[in-house]
């Protein structure tokens, strides 16, 4: 009853066409078809926020969008946003402040934080918490995450930039 359909979209700057089954979510498409496993599939019902990606520049749940719906869209995943340095300062700050433990929620947290700071240059702590209300972290208790985002907001407002995130040498 449901045959695969062609979908053309831009992922991390590269335009590609693939056949997808209509029921395949964008999250599964990114992970399985493209191997972009930085987008995490958690609850798969729009509650935990681990699968957030940028769709046409705004954070959305990749689990609440079917890949066919993203035809013509521009997607940026945590991999693309790392490569082009957009998240570099947030990643540094998360690292510095220990704002992650297991890391499962981190890609979604970074995308939410980026979405918030694009809309609100200097959010209050309450606004940061509000923006993270759809991102579950079961390790950190959020305090360090809020600290890291607050730090980056101040640095960005002061015009500071950061080098692309790299793992420190062992």
């Amino acid at each position, binding site marked *: 009853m449901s045959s695969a359909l062609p979908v053309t979209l831009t992922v991390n700057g590269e335009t590609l066409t693939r056949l997808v089954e209509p029921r395949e979510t964008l999250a599964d498409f990114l992970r399985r078809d493209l191997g972009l496993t930085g987008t995490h599939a958690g609850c798969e019902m*729009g509650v935990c926020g681990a699968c957030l990606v940028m769709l046409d520049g705004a954070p959305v749940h990749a689990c609440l969008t079917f890949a066919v719906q993203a035809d013509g869209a521009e997607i940026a995943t945590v991999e693309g946003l790392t490569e082009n340095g957009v998240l570099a300062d947030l990643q540094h700050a998360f690292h510095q402040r220990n704002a992650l433990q297991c890391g499962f929620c981190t890609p979604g947290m970074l995308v939410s934080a980026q979405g918030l700071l694009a809309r609100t240059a200097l959010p209050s702590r309450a606004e940061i918490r509000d923006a993270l209300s759809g991102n579950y972290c079961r390790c950190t208790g959020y305090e360090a995450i809020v600290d890291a985002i607050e730090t980056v907001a101040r640095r960005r407002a002061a015009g500071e930039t950061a080098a692309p995130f790299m793992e420190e040498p062992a």
Partner: protein
Amino acid sequence: MKARAFDYARPASVAEALTAFEQADGDASYIAGGQSLVPALALRLQAPARLVDIAHIAELRGIAVEEGWLRLGALTRHVELHDHPLVATHAPLLALAAPHVAHPAIRNRGTLGGSVALADPAAEFPAMLLAMDAEMEITGPEGSRRVPAGDFFQDLYQTALEPGELLVALHIPAAGPGHRCAFDEIARRRGDYALAGCGVMLTMPGDIVDEARIACLAVGSTPLRARAAEAALIGRRLDPDSIRKAQSALADDLDPPDDAEVPAAMRLHLARVLLGRLLGGMAEAA
């Protein structure tokens, strides 16, 4: 969980959408933002044979003021209701309610038409449309019609939409100057379904309340107008006495159901607390 297999149509016009729906013999769903539908599919609460994706239909977009009415295309996203200057000016209750709807990522994708067509009793926008006497523009195989919000929300998830009909736009009498609006809700966590919510719109040319519109959410099977509470305010000053009378009158407007989590008396209490806070804030600002 994953959605059951379905086939997918992406019409470019309302006429094509109606046809695509009809061809599925009633076993279809329209999808726009999908922020409530996709979880329902993933949980297999729904499993239509066909999804008709209306998100690319230009006729369903747009925010404009025409002859005293604000027209909001059904595809207007929650984030646009929050940001758009015409909404802030002419339908401020929607702009005030928007930050309370789910989470930012949901608001980037969810649509006003989707929220209205679903008619969740805890949803913010349906209640605010009821408060503003909005009219729903519906198109179906039989043609187009406009249904007042008061007739649109019929029961739990039941609306005036017949199967296959499409919600095209929302029309709201544009609020002129002299209106004051307030909205708040109580939820256990930010973004959760509200335990009770309330929006108020007052017209006060001077000290005296000329017109009052109050609608509540999450206190019944549909959004509800609080006519008795409105009547308690009209023709009076907004002071502690009239506010108390309005709070007390809510008992005549609302008859919340008892459920496992929240007793009926608690929902009524929360609605009264909210109304008191909102009106108190408006009195102070006056």
